[in-house]
């Protein structure tokens, strides 16, 4: 039977810990070990945890250090972990009884399990919090769809589990990423080793997030900083982060406008706080679309301010970016796969392995249904992924697909 360690990093949140810890006492699967890692805590975190340790049905200890870094704190917890699986949950997560059991139901050792951090709204939730909940739930809904192809950006460190060996083999989180995105960076290294992600919809932790618009904007700033760091660490990612092609969710900002964040170095903070005031008043009178417009720009400005804080000028940034992007080249000899004619299992695995690396064309009766570009930092392709992509064909592609479906059903099979 697997042994489990739960690592809870915390910083100055003695008030929240009792809820987190007492939620763990009701788990359907026992026993396990819990390590609370207190990072630079000057409140009574340690006493609170020790008081709990006496009457909980699991081994509970607390480790302290002063690193002021979430990455280092999680690494320290993993170092002390005795279990063969380590589950990381944040101190604002209230676990439902099935959490540990669901994390453990993975079949393969080379799989990282992502939990479901279900957003729990505070009282009188702000507009931003309502929208953030929709964003998170959409994210998890996407994960639940069979055939979702996970990428490194799907790993969030608040509720996930991994084999302790694998964690140590990869060297844990990169402590150089002290502010943001250490989870993405770790996720990227995981995908590089061919690790698959799995979403455990029953590993529910209620996420009592207190983040609001101003705090989120500060994080966006740090995300800009961290994305540059990520590009420097893994140059092959630059294309997807800063290239105009396939920008993976990062706010894009083009042409002359991009000079703005670089030019406003000193005044940025006051511009942002003025924008926040406008957004606040627009929320008061419920002009939602105007408010969204303001936040749209605040987000872009702050992200690029973050990028600008690393470089002296736009020219320096552009030079660096172009140099990085040129280095990553995409192969021309993309293999193709005939979807109508089933392949032998072994051949299929081989084509999928090459396809994950170089990209893949899916043909049906000799006609191209879709072209899958090589995706850096994504899971290796599976048949389920392709089936899903066929289902999601856009409107201009679906009519031929429908015709194919008829052929396929006449032949006794279904396309997707």
């Amino acid at each position, binding site marked *: 039977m697997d042994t489990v360690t739960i690592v809870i990093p915390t910083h100055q949140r003695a008030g929240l810990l009792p809820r987190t810890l007492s939620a763990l006492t009701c788990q359907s699967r026992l026993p396990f070990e819990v390590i609370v890692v207190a990072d630079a805590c000057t409140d009574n975190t340690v006493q609170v945890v020790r008081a709990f340790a006496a009457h909980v049905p699991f081994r509970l200890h607390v480790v302290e250090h002063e690193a002021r870094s979430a990455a280092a704190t999680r690494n320290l917890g993993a170092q002390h972990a005795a279990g063969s699986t380590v589950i990381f949950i944040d101190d604002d997560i209230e676990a439902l009884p099935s959490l540990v059991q669901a994390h453990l139901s993975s079949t393969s050792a080379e799989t990282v399990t992502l939990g479901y951090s279900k*957003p729990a*709204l505070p009282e009188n939730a702000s507009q931003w919090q309502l929208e953030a909940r929709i964003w998170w739930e959409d994210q998890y809904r996407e994960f639940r769809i069979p055939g979702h192809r996970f990428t490194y950006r799907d790993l969030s460190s608040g509720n996930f589990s991994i084999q302790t060996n694998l964690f140590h083999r990869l060297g844990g989180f990169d402590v150089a990423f002290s502010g943001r995105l250490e989870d993405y960076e770790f996720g990227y290294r995981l995908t590089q080793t061919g690790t698959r992600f799995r979403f455990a919809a029953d590993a529910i932790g209620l996420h009592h997030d207190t983040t609001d618009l101003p705090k989120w904007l500060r994080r966006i700033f740090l995300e800009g900083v961290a994305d540059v760091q990520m590009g420097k660490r893994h140059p092959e990612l630059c294309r997807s982060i800063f290239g105009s092609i396939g920008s993976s969710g990062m706010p894009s900002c083009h042409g002359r406008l991009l000079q703005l964040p670089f030019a406003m170095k000193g005044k940025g903070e006051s511009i942002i706080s003025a924008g926040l005031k406008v957004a606040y008043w627009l929320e008061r009178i419920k002009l939602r679309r105007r408010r969204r417009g303001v936040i749209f720009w605040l987000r872009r400005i702050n992200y690029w301010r973050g990028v600008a804080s690393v470089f002296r000028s736009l020219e320096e940034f552009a030079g660096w970016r172009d140099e990085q992007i040129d280095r990553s080249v995409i192969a021309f000899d993309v293999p193709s796969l005939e979807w109508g004619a089933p392949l032998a299992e072994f051949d299929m695995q081989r084509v999928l392995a090459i396809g994950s690396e170089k990209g893949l064309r899916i043909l049906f009766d000799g006609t191209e249904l879709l072209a899958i570009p090589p995706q850096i930092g994504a899971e290796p392709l599976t048949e389920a992924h392709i089936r899903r992509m066929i289902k999601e064909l856009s*409107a201009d592609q679906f009519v031929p697909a429908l015709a194919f479906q008829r052929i396929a059903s006449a032949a006794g099979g279904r396309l997707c």
Partner: protein
Amino acid sequence: MTNYTSNLAHSPAQSAFGVTIARGPATIKDWVLFSSRERSPHMINEEGTLPDPPPLPVLEIDLSDPDVFRREAKIEGPSPMVLIIIRFRGAVVGQFEAPVEGGRIGWHAVQSVLGKLALAIWKQDAIRAAPVPQLSASVVVCTRDRRSDLERCLPTLEPFARAGHEILVVDNCPTTDETARLVAKYSGVRYVLEPRPGEGIARNRGLKEARGDIVAFTDDDAKADPNWLDSLLRNFEDPMVALVTGITLSNELKSKAQIWFERSYGFQRGFLRREFDLTNFEPLAAGVLGATVNVAIRKSVLPDTGLFDEALGPGTECQSGADHEFFYRVLSRGYRAVYDPAALVWHRHRREWTALQRALYGYGVGVFAWWTRALVYEGEFGVLRIAPWYFFHHHVRNLLRSLFKRPGCYPLDLAYAEFSGALAGPREYFRARRRLSSERSRIPRRMPVPPAQDAAAAQRSGLQ
């Protein structure tokens, strides 16, 4: 016959009898496209009068039936057109009008639109594959002295009772006990008497009495399709979804009023599933979602959103608007709403022209009444923008078009009824509120309020 758009992906909703197709994110402008000129019928002749049309026959065909085009379809009656409702594996995927030639349908006309149905077929087929979640439902029908309608409605609901769901009939301030006696004949149907008149009051009673996780509403003059309830429930798999509306079609198009209503106003909102939430939709345009004739609500969100406003809706001064106001509150509290055309209800539209006039007046009142409520009691300043915009682009414009007899315009009496209703909306809302508050001070509260505090806490913690 309406002309069909050629570009599938980018055309706006073209409807009543065109095939409604893909739509992008909704804006306020989209909403108007749904309800005004894009769906204007070519019913008014050159003199600007509305001729009395012969009854429009309705024909349902299922494309998944392999012999569908080989079968003879004989159309009786003098109508030169027939309304064809197209299904695919049971779900409706489109409807349009085709000419009748010598008592037969020209199948080539049907085949020419098949390509336009492909998107709806493709998308709906993918959705149908999803399993129905294990949720209990209560179906609530509010009625008042309409025995003959209810007699047609209840048998269509019986299968849901056999499947283990609850059926409730809320009898709203009846003058006879006919409804009670009718309901007693059905074993799986529960009868609830609500003595205070007003549809909002009756619906709220239904919400309080219902024991299911999901409360589905339909009207006494409607008939549910066999897949109706399952199709609604399927959408609640997503924990964010608090409200699901379905498609409402008519299979009785006998009188002028019914044909006009289905052609130019109608309850259907297209044949593609759509999702609405704060991030892609303006809640003040909640009219896009549909109406209470075909809607399901997740009961656990009620402490957060509140119940229907009893000052709105049929039976009050405002005559309508309760549903859209409720939809607005669901959306503005951050939940998601879904319009799913797989959930089908057949509605019998009003037969008499005068009833249609009253209904349009009521729609005019309702929309401005609930916007008044949103502005005054919810602090929605967006109303100041959307209300004048809609008034000029819908009500005033329709009235002017009718006055100048532009092609495809509303009959003048209907345009005027809606216009005058809109003007009366805010006044009628305040009148209704005043009446209600004076009544409340006289009558003690009958029903205990649901334990809002505990339920609100449960909701916040995300437990369904």
